[in-house]
């Protein structure tokens, strides 16, 4: 490949990202570029797929676990006879926690390795950087993490929750089961918490819940004295927490230090999963709530098999979490779509996507062919003293994905 190609592509990417941002809609961006001729080889005994996760840099902690569960799914599928009779051949690339590297490596996977589909990405910025690559080259990305919604791309399948499958059920739980009348919002100062809180504000206005405060701290900040003072003084019925990473530790330590507890003022968090609990300190979290679609403690035969296989491969102390499960599921969903289409070609797979289901560890999930998200059951969990999370509430059935919140009259978009 011409050594200047990545740079040219980088330039084109930024132009596409910019224009799509100006247009306020990422979904249409790819239609301008002509779909390149696919170089995917389908005549051999194997088919190549790409795993693109940050195996180094600040996100490696989280994304390495996704890589492990993807690898486990690939091994299982191969042991079971592969996809359309072909063994999966994995090409793994390191996104290095840099959105630009994600875009470069995605280009490499598609153009040089000729993979049939790519699985990975974690941060919204990595996904936004890859989106124009997959649209421009008409290839497939399977993205496994809950995110802020308001996006749908023809070339991306989103197997984590969108806001109406995590944040809105979290609010429903607080309103219906906890009877809260007021809420306080605490978050890290970047795109996901800001978007999530805009949605929460709209929800609260519609449902007569008073928002007593909305506070942000820079990502990584450990200075929560004033924020917790404000929370305590406001005396809200509950706190909705969209903090990310290390800030959670400082926040919950300060929270406990100022005498606030899960009984006096419960906190619902959307970014603390099983892996994060030991880092924050179980003592600081016991009794607090999280909103996700999967917990390690789910008691179904599928999940028990998933957990024990994962522990066998990665040690008895390893835990499974929502993004890992969503990544594992994504590989099986792709398999289902390919087998339904009887083809590895992107367009055939997309056409076959509607209604493909998989009996995932979290329960049955179904692909929505229109917005490329999947129907997922929402779970509210309580953090137990052993660091695992126990379901205390679940939506009756899988919730249809609605990334743009079109079925929620109180949301008029941004």
């Amino acid at each position: 490949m011409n050594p200047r190609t990545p740079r040219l592509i980088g330039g084109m990417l930024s132009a596409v990202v910019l224009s799509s941002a100006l247009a306020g809609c990422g979904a249409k961006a790819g239609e301008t570029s002509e779909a390149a001729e696919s170089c995917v080889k389908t005549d051999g005994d194997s088919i190549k797929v790409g795993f693109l996760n940050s195996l180094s840099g600040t996100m490696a902690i989280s994304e390495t676990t996704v890589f492990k569960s993807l690898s486990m799914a690939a091994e299982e599928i191969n042991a079971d006879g592969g996809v359309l009779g072909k063994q999966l051949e994995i090409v793994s690339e390191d996104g290095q926690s840099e959105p630009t590297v994600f875009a470069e490596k995605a280009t490499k996977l598609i153009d040089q390795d000729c993979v049939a589909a790519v699985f990975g990405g974690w941060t919204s910025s990595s996904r936004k950087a890859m989106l124009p690559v997959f649209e421009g080259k008409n290839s497939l990305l399977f993205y496994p993490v809950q995110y802020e919604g308001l996006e749908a791309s023809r070339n991306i399948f989103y197997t984590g929750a969108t806001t109406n499958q995590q944040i809105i059920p979290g609010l429903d739980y607080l309103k219906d089961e906890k009877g809260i009348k007021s809420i306080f919002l605490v978050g890290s100062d970047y795109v996901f918490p800001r978007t999530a809180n805009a949605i929460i504000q709209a929800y609260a206005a519609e449902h007569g819940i008073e928002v007593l405060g909305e506070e942000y701290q820079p990502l990584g900040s450990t200075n929560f004295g004033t924020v917790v003072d404000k929370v305590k003084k406001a005396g809200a019925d509950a706190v909705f927490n969209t903090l990310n990473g290390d800030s959670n530790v400082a926040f919950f330590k300060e929270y406990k230090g100022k005498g606030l507890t899960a009984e006096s003022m419960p906190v619902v968090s959307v970014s603390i999963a099983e892996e994060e609990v030991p880092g924050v300190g179980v003592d600081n979290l016991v009794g607090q709530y999280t909103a996700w679609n999967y917990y390690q403690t789910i008691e179904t035969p599928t999940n028990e098999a998933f957990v024990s296989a994962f522990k066998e491969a990665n040690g008895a102390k390893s835990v499974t979490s929502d993004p890992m499960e969503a990544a594992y599921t994504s590989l099986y969903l792709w398999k289902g779509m390919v087998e339904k289409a009887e083809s590895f070609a992107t367009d055939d797979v997309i056409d076959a996507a509607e209604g493909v289901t998989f009996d995932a560890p979290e329960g049955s999930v179904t692909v929505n062919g229109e917005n490329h998200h999947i129907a997922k059951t929402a779970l509210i969990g309580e953090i137990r003293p052993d660091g695992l999370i126990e379901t205390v509430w679940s939506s009756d059935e899988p919730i249809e994905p609605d990334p743009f919140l079109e079925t929620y009259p109180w949301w008029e978009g941004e």
Partner: protein
Amino acid sequence: MGVCVRDPAPSPDGSAVGPYPQKGRGTVDVFLSQVFTGLSAGGVLLLIAIGLTLTFGQMGVINMAHGEFIMAGAYTAYVINSVLGNAELGLLVALPVGFVVGGLLGVLLEAGVIRWMYHRPLDTLLVTYGVGLVLQQVARDIFGAPAKEVPSPSWLSGSVPVLGYDFPLARLFLLVLSLVCLLGVVAVLKYTALGRQVRATVSNRDLAETVGVSTRRTDRITFFLGSGLAGIAGVALTLLGSTGPTIGSSYIVEAFLVVVVGGIGQLKGTVIAAFAIGLTQSFLEYATSGSIAKVLVFLAIVVFLQARPQGIFAVRTRSLA
């Protein structure tokens, strides 16, 4: 649309969840609570800056690896807690051990790198920055990338009421610890032979040398003290947050600001600057938000340093240069 699987704390009337803290307190309370928050934030800044005042202020060395000595202290606390398996004792054991670990790292850095470049401050900045990055990676290789949680002793959990305000015990402990460290440094500088030698070296290195002060030895011991204090700060910081490879670098910029605003090498200036910045931050944060308060504090520091580049107190040097 939901079905309740298990409700851990059913509320009797279904309307509220539990007893809530007092709503709508008066402005005096707000004032007091922000004073306490500011004091505790200032105490943390002071604790981190005391060691820096010695190595940066007294020695004139821009030691960017100071933050990694803080990290070493934090990991020391983690290791000791894991070995002892006793959070109650862990902190008390970790404080002196953290001091020694930080101090030894400082002496190593001084003897291995810094002593070759005492008159080249920009070079010390670059080299110690590199050393800091190396130390971060070493920590990542030893302890892994995910943050470690150091359990706090039970005698520091909860809070004490001070004038009707709940002051978290951990923060109170930090405040007291920073004042104890400060008094210790003052005592060493004022009342010991070493302190006199340090002050003589700072005032005029050549003249001190002529009257028989071994400035090499003084440098080394000062570095041990300053870096040891970073180790103590690291141990103490585990009470506030988690321990990761970058714990030090997130505090180092603010610590340098405290030393510069206070007047380089001026302990009393460092104290005033630490609490002034802590209090300003706390009140601005109450009035605005976390991010905006930070910007405003930095702006205020820029304006202050424009008006008074030497900081709150200026160094009186007897150097002829």
